[in-house]
Structures are given as structure tokens and as C-alpha cells.
């Protein structure tokens, strides 16, 4: 188990080489893939999210930690799939139409992946119909919408309305976030949840899929 402690630390330190090496070694010793994810990667990324939340970590530290987590996940994922383990939930994520900013969205996507979700990232400037297509095709539990600008966050409403029109609104939970977005705005446009920060988004996603 000391190895998993090392992996935990490697993710927190953003050291992807050590993270990959320790993961390989742990698997060779017979550690179960699910143990690595749930016993190590998820708590490590939760700690990273906490530090980001407390503003001890900033974007660079978060990105490096996410890279280390992904280096480990890359090794573990094929084994997980082979055992038929299910993710915590499936999330379709993207920055809404008209908005090309993807920094915040990428952070949330990384933290969600680190939180055990399967993340389908549609990128930036995503039209409502692409969110709908992806959510339907991939049987998503959650749709996460990002916007950086006050002028583009209205596309969040358009997207939620499009889910309604397509008759899919009840099939998915929709969460929103981004610099100009507030709880009040989320309520006004009929979103199921609002995350004030990237860290809060993971807790919210868990709550929404459990609901």
C-alpha cells in the first residue's frame, strides 16, 4: 500500500512520470484497477480540488495534477473496462455556442474525470444540437455547460431550451458554471445546478447523479 501513497503524492505534486511508473508497478503487483482509482486517484484529485478551492493551488498546479492523474488513468482505464466497472456517471461537457473560452471547462473536465466520471468533452463553441446528440448517443447522466462571457452565457438558456424542445430535458441533469454565471442565473434558466468553482462542480455532479 505504500506504493499507492506514492501515487497519491505524485498526483498532488503533479509528477506524471512518477504517477505512471507507480501505477505500472502497482498493477504488476496485482493491485486492482478499481482500487487504484477509488482508493488513490479520486481522493488525490479531491485533495487537489480542495487546495484549489482554498486558493493554495492555482491553475498551473491543478493542470499538472490533472496530467499526472491522466497518466495513471491511461494505464488503468483498459483494465477497468475489461472488468466492466461502471463510472460514477457520464458527463457531456462543453463551452456553449459563441464562446471560445475553454480554460475553465477544461479544468472542470479534468476534475470530473479525477472524480471518477466518464467525461465526453465537446470542446468550445458547441451548438445546442451537438450537446443533445452527444447526450443521447452516449446515454449521458449529466450535461455541463460553461461560458466565460456575460454576452455568451445566454447560450446556456438556448441550450437548456433545446433539450426541452427535443423532449430530453427529463433524461439528463444540466449543470452550469463560468465566471459570470451565478446561482440566480442558473435558477432563472432552469438549470439543475450551479458550481461556483471547478472544485464545487465535482461535488455538484456527484449530488446530481445521486438524485
Amino acid at each position, binding site marked *: 500500500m505504500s506504493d499507492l501513497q506514492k501515487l497519491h503524492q505524485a498526483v498532488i505534486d503533479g509528477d506524471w512520470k512518477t504517477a505512471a511508473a507507480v501505477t505500472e508497478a502497482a498493477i504488476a503487483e496485482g493491485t486492482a484497477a478499481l482500487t487504484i482509482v477509488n482508493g488513490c486517484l479520486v481522493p488525490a484529485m479531491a485533495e487537489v480540488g480542495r487546495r484549489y478551492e482554498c486558493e493554495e*493551488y492555482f491553475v498551473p498546479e491543478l493542470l499538472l495534477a490533472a496530467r499526472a492523474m491522466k497518466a495513471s488513468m491511461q494505464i488503468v482505464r483498459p483494465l477497468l473496462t475489461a472488468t466492466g466497472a461502471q463510472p460514477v456517471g457520464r458527463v457531456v461537457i462543453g463551452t456553449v455556442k*459563441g464562446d471560445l473560452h475553454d480554460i475553465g471547462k*477544461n479544468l472542470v473536465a479534468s476534475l470530473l474525470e479525477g472524480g471518477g466520471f466518464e467525461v465526453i468533452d465537446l470542446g468550445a463553441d458547441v451548438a445546442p444540437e451537438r450537446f443533445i446528440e452527444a447526450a443521447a448517443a452516449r446515454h449521458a447522466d449529466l450535461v455541463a455547460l460553461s461560458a466565460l462571457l456575460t*454576452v455568451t452565457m*445566454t447560450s446556456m438558456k438556448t441550450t437548456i431550451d433545446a433539450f426541452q424542445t427535443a423532449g430530453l430535458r427529463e433524461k439528463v441533469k444540466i449543470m452550469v458554471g463560468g465566471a*459570470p454565471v451565478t446561482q440566480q442565473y442558473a435558477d432563472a434558466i432552469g438549470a439543475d445546478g450551479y458550481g461556483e468553482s471547478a472544485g464545487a462542480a465535482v461535488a455538484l455532479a456527484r449530488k446530481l447523479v445521486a438524485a
Partner: protein
Amino acid sequence: MSRLGEWLAGGPFITDGAWGTELQARGLAPGAAPDTWNVTHPERVEAVARAYVEAGSQIILTNTFRANAVAMEGDLEAINRAGVAISKRAAAGEALVFASIGPTGKMLIAGEIGEEQAQAAFSAQAAALTAAGADALLVETMSDIAEARLAVAAAKSTGLPVIVSFAFDSGKNKDRTMMGATPEAVAAAMVEAGADAVGANCGVGVEHTAPVCRRLHAACDLPVWIKPNAGLPIIENTLEGPTVRYDMSAEVFASHFTALREAGASFVGGCCGSTPDFIRALVRARANARCA
């Protein structure tokens, strides 16, 4: 004395306020790139620029914040040149024109773009802005020191004075950039990069700006450029859907002028949420400060 030093000998400069919201008030669609209006609706962009000159701005910017090849597509050479030409027409010799260069919107540290790509985008923009006759170049709303270094290097190669300004909006005291950089780290790196002035813009509202200004001023000998937001945006539900307003009056905003001056600001203006009225209020505040 440097060109910037000569200009500043006349006392603190009042710069301009927000452009995006002013363009929206003149019909720019939400989500549309304001920069393209330099080519498609030059008269409306000029109306915004002129409103700031008439309000008393001694320096106006250009509507070119996003016009680098990483952040947007289109005929960027034409958009940048037109942006400077519009501001120069509006200034009509009454104000200086500092051309705006914004961030790429991509992260070097995440490998989303390479240094060469960012450098090439900034160089092309800086060259177009300079050829069109800008008085100085303003690299603004930066959060990453590494990216700002590339932009400053590109801007400096034109020979124009270069101001570089960061958005301090993170950390417990809102005194870090999104990438975690402190005012001291920014000042040291930008002195090293050869910037002629350093500053803070956008961020989380004018009430948080004086401490950042003071720290930038204490950390280096460069003039300090300050352009804060008018508080934070407030979302309101209207019949047309949610709209955004900034809940700070021009007078309240301008009441921070003295604190910013005492904190060492040489240039004072407004960012998101500010209007020509805010500039008028700043001009009055400066006059009052001189008479006090």
C-alpha cells in the same frame, strides 16, 4: 526621458472605459466578436471612441483586444489597422492612442499552443497596430507571466512604448492572477521583459485594486497602469431574458481615484462596466484632488 516619461510629466493620465458594453448598446450582438466591427461598422466603433475623448480620456485604446491569430479568425491585419485608424480619427490629436493586445485565450502550460505560435500571433498583431500609427502598445488582461513575456517581446520589437497589464482576480485577497502570479512576481518579470509600464486591469472591482497597485508600485520603478472593473456584474431577469449590469455608480467608482493615486497609479481608467460617465467622474476627481 522616455516617450512615456515625457507624457507622464503632465501628471496622472485619465484613460478610457469599457468598449464591449458600449458597442452592445450600439447593436453589437451578444457573442459576436467586437473586433470585426472595425471593418463592418467602423462608424459605430468610432462613436464609442469619440464618446471617451469627449468625456476627457487623454488616452484611448483600440477595439483590437481579441485580434490575434490564436484568439480569432478573419482578416486580422485589416481589423487591427482599422482599429487604430478609428481611434486616431476619434482622438483627432486630443488623445493618445494605445493599441490593445489581449491574451490568446490558450494555455502554454497545458500545451494548448506552443510558444512559437503565440509569439507569431502577437508579432503579427503588434506589427499591424504599429504600421497603422498607434502611439503605444498595451498588452492587457494577462494572467500568465510566460505568455505576457512573449507578447511584450513582440510589442517591444516595434520600437513603441509598451505597457503590460494583468488581471488580478484570484487568491484569498484577490491579489493573484488566475495562474497564481503575485504583483511582485509580475513586476519583476515585466521589468526584466523590458516593459515601460506595468499594471492591473479588469479583476474583481475597483475596491480591490489599490492594494495591488501599491504592491506593483513598490516592487518596481515603472509607472503603474490601473483600469479596474466597476464592481462585479449583477444578473437580472428581464422580459428579454437575463441581462447584466454593474452595480456601481460613476461617482462611487471615481471616489477611489485618490486612493489609487496614493497607491502610485500613473494611469487611471475603467474596465468592464465603466462608461464615458465614469471617465467624466474621474476627470472631476482629479481636478478636486489637485485643488485639495
